């Protein structure tokens, strides 16, 4: 699933997947700004068929936070 998240990030930000590490976040990736963040949320919801809760929306600012949120939605089932 981490690879899928990184692939989506790569498509949304327009940078190669190789440049996005498991520890990537809005702090470390220059292209990852607030306008890209809107697109990221929409892309993740469509790709993983989830709907993020209102409280979660502002948390999706790193690969690991996204991973945790998706896992919660998928009830911890390994993807």
């Amino acid at each position, binding site marked *: 699933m981490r690879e899928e998240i990184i692939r989506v990030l790569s498509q*949304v930000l327009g940078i190669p997947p190789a440049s996005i590490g498991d520890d990537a976040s809005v702090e470390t990736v220059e292209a990852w700004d607030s*306008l890209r963040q*809107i*697109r990221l*949320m*929409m*892309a993740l919801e*469509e*790709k993983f068929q989830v709907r993020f809760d209102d409280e979660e*929306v502002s948390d999706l600012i790193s690969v690991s936070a996204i991973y945790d949120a998706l896992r919660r939605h998928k009830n911890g089932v390994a993807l």
Partner: protein
Amino acid sequence: MEYSELLAVNRRLRDSLPSDAAQLAVLSNITIDPIREFLEYALRSRGVNADVHIGVFDNIVQESARCEKHTVVVVFWEMMTILAGLQSRGETLDDLSMPQLLAQTSAQISLVLENLSRTPLVLFNLFSALPYTYEGIKDARLDRLCRCLNDGLRATARSNVVLVDLDKIFAQVSIPCALDWRLYYTAQSLYSNAFYTAYTAHVLPALLPVFGKAKKALIFDCDNTLWKGIVGEDGAQGITISPQSPQGKVFRDVQMLALEMAGQGVIIGLCSKNNPEDVEAVLESHPDMLLRNRDIAIKRINWRDKHANLRSIAEDLNIGLDAILFVDDSPHEILAIQQQCPEIECFTVPKNLFQYPSALRAFLRCFGTGSLTREDATRTEMYQVEARRKAAAPQHASMEDFIRSLGLKVTLYVNPAQHVARIAQLTQKTNQFNLTTARHVEEEIARAVQSEDTLVVAADVQDRFGHYGLTGVAMASLDQPTKTASIDVLLLSCRVLGRQVEASLLEGLIRLLQAAGIRRILAYYRKTARNSQVEDFYDSFGFTILRQEGGDKDYVLETEGYHSSRAECIGVEYA
């Protein structure tokens, strides 16, 4: 296509499209950023290189003054932020505030429209309070406010403005699906991807003609597409189009849609695997047919591959494959065509037949908007007349003989205000015999016709077979102090190619410029994928090349001592 993929493909398309991108701007008082890729992809995937620029947030008025370079400006003026939180204060605002708000906003709207008066196309959304009022039974004050704002918009919008009814988008997508409150409260971004997708599809018919991509022809298969049944098996009397039968009614509605399209200038054609006599029997004598031979401009009824037939249709009509919409009931046929001619847009008759007319109607929106011209109303007839002309051609020994036998007459209209719509349409639709491919909308032509510094000439052609209509346009801008003019537009719609009409148009223009005191004429050839046939057009009329770069050519002609070299076979009149 998945959203993340659309983002990636959109980026790739940008790199693969040649030449400078057309500039579009979206101005809004909310965060409207995500619409960018939807609009870009819709255009780029159809071969139009376009960049969408999002205006500074909540600065619609100021940004509207900075749009000189933009071909299209889209305005998303959300009612809810005219006054902070207006969507929740509609009923509690005191009686003074509403009229004040209305006056203030109306004044700003007028200013924006004034600033954008030179933009070729402005897509201005009508104000809507529906998202906040649709569940309540009473007529809310916010609805009344929007109605007043919209009445004002309709009254002040000029011809370059297309008003977009957001309520239609909400009707398609549903309001809960159209809005995203999470994004609104965290980022002032109100709309969902579902909304952006529907909005883009909704406005595409208004966008495409501006970039020369209007659809022109609607071609139908016959069996189980225009009638129920297979004429080769059931016989001409065995097929169903009866108003007494549910399926018959469906096909009648489809035929009526086709007739409506024909009335708007769309070319209707047939492409079917059948014996021609079988289809003729239906067209001529089936009592329930609504479409008849008089409505059909072109037919390919034979046993050849459909993609070859469609190519032949495009060639005969002198239009690009991308100007054709093809309707068939067979997914196999459609697949084969999509593989062989991906430029052709295809529509498959739905398996659930009762959905057919409404689904087709939605699809037919792509035939565009804009004023109806006389040519539109008589286009089918003109193609039929053209077919008769072509049939007469082989009887003559030479091209000159043939042209003389036609008795061609060209009438040149100078700065004709009555032909503004047709002139604009020709600049948008003509691709092959077009020297500069400069596209113009009605507003621009109207201004050019009034201006002392531009000369607009439209060529109307007829012969003994009938009227071709207005088929050529030339536009020149004049600089009196230097006695120089430059030919910014020179085009001929394809039906009159090869008949020396172009000589009459160019030489007529030169004569008019000479009479206006012009000594020097500059002209341009701008190379595109479709206009290589006019590469040497100016050369053949004695223009000298000033500059050549990457296929483009700049020319000059000194008018002193210029003699007309051809066109003795054509009578020219000025009007």
